[in-house]
C-alpha cells in the first residue's frame, strides 16, 4: 500500500482559460488539499514542455495520480494519458477537469467562473483518488474491409485499400456503381466530362481482384467490434451472405432536396421549371428545349434552393454555386443569343479554379442578380400574353435595392443536398452518430474528420456533409490510409473501461442481461451468476446502474468514483477520505 500522491496541473491555455478563470488561485487553493503533492499552473499544458512538467514531477516527486485542469477531455485526454505512460505510470490514473469549453468559454463572471473551476478540479481530485490502473487489451485485426456505398468516394477508398493487396467488399444498394457522379454531365471548374473520369474508376474497381463488388445489395445487419466485424448482406434474389472484416468505410452519399415544398418556386406546377439534376440530364442529352420543343430565350438559374434557409436547411450545399456557373457557361455556348440570369444569394466560389470560373462567367453576358437570403424568396409566376416570355420571377434585388422582375422561359432550381432518408438506419447498423442535419458526425471536426466515435468505422464523401468530387476522393483516400495503418499493425486496442461482475455479490437476477444492448453478458448456470464478455462489452455502464446489488463494476466510471466526484463538487471543506489505496 503506497500513499496517494496527486499532482494537479491547471492550464492557462494562453488567455483562453486565464482570461476568465484565475488559474493561479485555483492551483493555490487545490494545493492545500491533502494528498496533493504539487499543484501548478502553466501556459499550455498540452505543449511539449507542459507534458514534460508532468513527466518530471511523476519521476521526481513519485506522483501516482494526475489531474489536469484544461480543455475538454474529448480533445486532450489521450495526450496526457500518453504522458503518464511515458513516465511509467498507468494512463488511467488520470482525470481531466474541463475548465475551458464548459467554463471559461461559456461564462462572463470571472469570480463565478473561478469558483466553478475550483469545484470541477476538486471533483476530479476526489474521483482520481479511486482510479485504478487498467491494462489495455488488444485484438487481432481482420485485414478485410467493408465499403458501404459505390459512389466515387466508396470506390476511391476501395481502390486504395485493394491496391495495398487487402480484401475489400464493396456493397452498393443500386444496380450500378457511380452514385451521384454518374448523373453529372461536366464537372466544374474545368468543365471536363464526369462520365470519362467515372468510367475509368468503375473499370478499375471491376477489374481489381481484391475487390468483391455487390450491387443491388442491402446490408441486413452488422455486429462485432473493431478488427472483427461481421455482417449479413442480401444480394438481390440470392441467398444471404455473411462477410467478415476488420474495418468499415461508410460512403453512402447524399440525396438532392425536393423543391416542391417551396411554394414560391411552383416546382411541379409549372412545366418548364427544372431541378439542377433534371437539367443535368437535359445537358447530357444535348437538347436544351422547353416542354413544347422550342429553345428558351430567357433562362433563369435560382441558387440556394433549400440551402442556407432557416425553413429548409441552414447549411450551404457547397457545390451548387459552381454547378450553376457551369450551367450558365454551357447555356451560353449552346444558346448564344439567350438571356441568362443567375439569381443568387451569395456566390461561393471557393476552391481551386472556382473564382476563375466565376470571373470568366461574368464576362459572358450573364446577368447576376442577388436576393437577400433573410428576406422573402423570389417568386415565379406565369407571365401574361404581352410579356414575351413564359414566366416572370419577381424579387427584391439586393445590390440595387429594387423590386424587379426577370423574364424566363426556363427556370433551373439549384437544389441543395441533404442526408439520405436511410442515413439513420446505416448509423444504427455501424454505431455512429448523426448531427442535426442527419449527416454523420466525424470524431473531431478539425483533428479527425475521417474517423468516427466508433473504432474501426470511417465516414467518407458526402454522407459526412456536402462535398465536391476532389474533396470526397481525398477523404476516401485518407480513410484508406488510416485503415491500412491499423491493418499493418495487425492488432488494435479495444475498450478497457468495460463492466465486470463481482461473483460474490451477484444474486443472479439477470437484470444486467436484459439491459445490455450488446448481448455481452451471459449467465453462468452452474454458479448462478452473470458473466461479462469483455470483447463485446463497449462500456456504456447501463448494467452497472441497473444492478440491484452493486455487483457490477463499470471500470473507470465506478459507483465509488462517481459518488466521490459528486462529493467533491459539493463539499468544499471536506478532505478527501482516502489516505491510502
Amino acid at each position: 500500500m503506497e500513499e496517494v500522491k496527486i499532482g494537479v496541473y491547471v492550464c492557462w491555455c494562453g488567455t483562453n482559460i486565464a482570461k476568465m478563470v484565475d488559474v493561479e488561485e485555483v492551483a493555490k487553493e487545490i494545493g492545500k488539499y491533502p494528498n496533493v503533492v504539487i499543484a501548478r499552473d502553466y501556459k499550455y499544458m498540452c505543449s511539449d514542455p507542459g507534458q514534460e512538467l508532468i513527466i518530471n514531477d511523476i519521476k521526481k516527486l513519485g506522483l501516482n495520480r494526475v489531474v489536469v485542469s484544461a480543455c475538454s477531455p474529448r480533445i486532450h485526454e489521450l495526450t496526457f494519458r500518453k504522458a503518464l505512460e511515458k513516465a511509467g505510470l498507468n494512463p488511467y490514473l488520470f482525470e481531466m477537469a474541463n475548465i475551458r469549453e464548459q467554463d471559461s468559454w461559456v461564462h462572463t463572471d470571472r469570480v463565478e467562473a473561478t469558483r466553478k473551476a475550483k469545484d470541477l478540479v476538486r471533483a476530479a481530485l476526489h474521483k482520481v483518488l479511486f482510479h485504478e490502473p487498467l491494462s489495455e487489451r488488444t485484438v487481432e485485426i481482420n485485414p478485410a474491409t467493408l465499403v458501404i456505398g459505390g459512389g466515387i468516394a466508396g470506390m476511391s477508398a476501395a481502390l486504395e485499400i485493394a491496391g495495398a493487396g487487402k480484401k475489400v467488399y464493396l456493397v452498393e444498394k443500386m444496380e450500378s456503381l457511380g452514385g451521384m457522379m454518374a448523373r453529372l454531365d461536366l464537372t466544374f471548374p474545368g468543365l471536363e466530362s464526369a462520365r470519362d473520369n467515372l468510367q475509368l474508376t468503375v473499370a478499375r474497381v471491376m477489374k481489381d481482384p481484391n475487390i468483391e463488388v455487390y450491387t443491388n445489395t442491402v446490408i441486413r445487419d452488422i455486429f462485432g467490434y473493431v478488427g472483427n466485424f461481421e455482417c449479413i448482406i442480401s444480394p438481390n434474389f440470392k441467398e444471404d451472405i455473411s462477410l467478415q472484416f476488420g474495418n468499415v468505410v461508410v460512403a453512402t452519399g447524399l440525396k438532392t432536396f425536393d423543391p416542391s415544398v417551396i411554394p414560391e418556386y411552383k416546382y411541379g406546377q409549372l412545366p418548364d421549371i427544372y431541378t439542377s439534376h433534371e437539367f443535368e440530364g437535359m445537358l447530357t442529352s444535348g437538347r436544351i428545349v422547353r416542354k413544347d420543343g422550342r429553345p428558351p430565350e430567357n433562362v433563369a438559374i435560382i441558387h440556394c434552393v433549400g440551402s442556407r434557409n432557416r425553413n429548409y436547411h441552414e447549411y450551404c450545399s457547397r457545390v451548387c454555386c459552381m454547378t450553376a456557373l457551369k450551367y450558365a457557361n454551357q447555356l451560353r455556348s449552346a444558346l448564344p443569343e439567350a438571356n441568362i440570369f443567375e439569381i443568387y444569394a451569395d456566390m461561393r466560389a471557393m476552391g481551386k479554379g472556382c473564382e476563375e470560373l466565376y470571373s470568366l462567367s461574368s464576362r459572358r453576358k450573364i446577368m447576376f442578380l442577388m436576393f437577400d437570403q433573410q428576406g422573402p424568396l423570389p417568386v415565379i409566376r406565369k407571365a401574361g400574353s404581352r410579356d414575351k416570355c413564359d414566366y416572370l420571377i419577381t424579387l427584391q434585388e439586393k445590390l440595387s435595392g429594387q423590386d424587379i422582375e426577370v423574364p424566363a422561359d426556363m427556370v433551373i432550381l439549384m437544389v441543395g443536398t441533404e442526408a439520405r432518408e436511410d442515413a439513420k438506419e446505416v448509423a444504427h447498423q455501424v454505431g455512429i452518430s448523426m448531427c442535426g442535419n442527419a449527416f454523420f458526425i466525424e470524431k473531431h471536426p478539425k483533428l479527425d474528420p475521417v474517423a468516427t466515435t466508433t473504432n474501426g468505422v470511417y465516414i467518407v464523401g458526402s454522407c459526412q456533409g456536402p462535398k465536391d468530387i476532389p474533396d470526397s476522393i481525398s477523404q476516401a483516400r485518407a480513410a484508406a490510409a488510416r485503415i491500412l495503418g491499423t491493418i499493418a499493425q495487425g492488432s488494435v486496442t479495444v475498450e478497457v473501461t468495460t463492466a465486470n461482475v463481482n461473483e460474490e455479490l451477484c444474486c443472479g437476477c439477470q437484470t444486467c442481461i436484459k439491459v445490455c444492448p450488446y448481448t455481452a453478458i451471459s449467465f453462468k448456470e452452474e454458479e448462478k451468476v452473470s458473466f461479462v464478455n469483455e470483447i463485446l462489452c463497449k462500456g456504456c455502464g447501463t448494467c452497472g446502474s441497473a444492478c440491484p446489488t452493486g455487483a457490477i463494476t463499470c471500470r473507470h466510471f465506478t459507483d465509488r468514483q462517481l459518488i466521490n466526484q459528486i462529493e467533491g463538487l459539493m463539499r468544499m471543506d471536506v478532505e478527501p477520505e482516502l489516505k491510502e489505496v
Partner: protein
Amino acid sequence: MSQRVDQSLVREVEKFGKGSWNECFHCGNCTAICPLTEEGFLFPRKSYRAMQMGLKQTLASGLEPWLCYYCGDCSTSCPRDANPGETMMILRRYLTSVYDWTGLSKKFYTSHWWEFIFVLILAVIMVILFGFINPNPVDYTLTAEGSVRINAMFPIKWVELGDWAMAILVASLLISNILRMWYKTVIQDKSVKVSLFSYIREFYLLVVHFITQKRFSKCEDKNYWLSHWFLMTGYSIMFAVIVVWLPWFQTEKVYLWYEPQRLLGYYATFGLLFGLIVAGVGRIRKKGVKFRFSHISDWLFIVMLFLTTVTGILVHIFRINGMVEATYISYIVHMAVLVPMVIVEVPFSKWSHLAYRPFAVYFANLKKSGQPVKASVQS
C-alpha cells in the same frame, strides 16, 4: 411596381462609351469615398448597378449622374478597376440622349460621322452665307482710330437677328429637353410630392449653383473646380455678350482697356483659354483618372471651342490693327466654327450639361424638400 431587367441595355449604353462593366462586385468603396453622394442620391454604385441590370426607368428618372463632377476619386479607389467615374460620364451622355426628343443627340454621340458631317454642313452654310451671298461689299476704309469697320460688311442688326434666331432655336430645344428631364425625374417619381412653394424657394439655389459651381468645390481636388469655373464663366459671359448684348459689345468704336466691354471680353477669353488648356493638356497626357478616357465628343467640343476662341482673338487683333482682309476672313471662319458648335453642342452634346447639371441640383433639392408619399424600398 417591379421593373423588368434588360440585358440589352448594357449593349445600348456601351455605344456611348466603353466600360468594364463585369468587374464591379459592389463593394461600395466608390460611394463611400464620394464627397458628393448623400442619402437618397447614392452614387456611383447604384447608377452602375441600374445600368448593369438594365433598369431603364431607374436610370431615366435618376439625377445622380448629373450630381457627379467626375473628380475621379471613385475610380482611383476602385479595387477592381471598374471605372465608376467614367461610367457616370457615359451615363451622362446616355441621359442626354434620353432627354433629347429629336434623336439627334443619340446620333451624334454614337456616330462620329453624323456629328462631323452635321458640323461640316453648318460650317459650309455659314461660309456661303457670310462670304458669298452677303450683298455688302468689303469696306477698306478704316475708322478714325485705324481699325477695321467690321459692321459694314456684317451689319450688326443682321448678325444680331441671326444670333437671336440661333439662340431661340437652341434654347427651345434645350428647354424642351429640360422639361422632359423634369417630367422623367420629378413628375414620374411617385414616391415624393413637390409643392409649388418648393419650386419657388429652391429656385435661388439653381442660380447660386450655376454661378458658383460650388458642388464641384466639394470634390477633393480643388484645381479642377477652379479651371472648370473659369471655363464656365468665360463661356457664359461670352455667350451673353455676343448673343444678348451684341450691339453693345461689337461696335465700330474700339473701347479703351478699362471700359467694361473690353474687360469682359478679355476676362472671358482668359477664362476660356485657361479652362481649355487645362482640359486639353490633361486629356492629351491622360493626366489623372478624370482625363484617362476621352470620347470623341469630348475632343470635338474642346477643339471647336478652342478654334472659336482663337479665331475670336484673331478677329480682335486684325481689326484693331486695321488689317481688313484678315479681319473679314477670320470673322467668317470664326462664325463657321461658332455656329455649328453652339447648335450641335448646346442642345445635343457635351455642352448641354451646362443646363442639365444646375437643373439636376434644382430637381434634387425639390425632391429632398418634397413630402415622401410612401417609404421607398431603398436599402
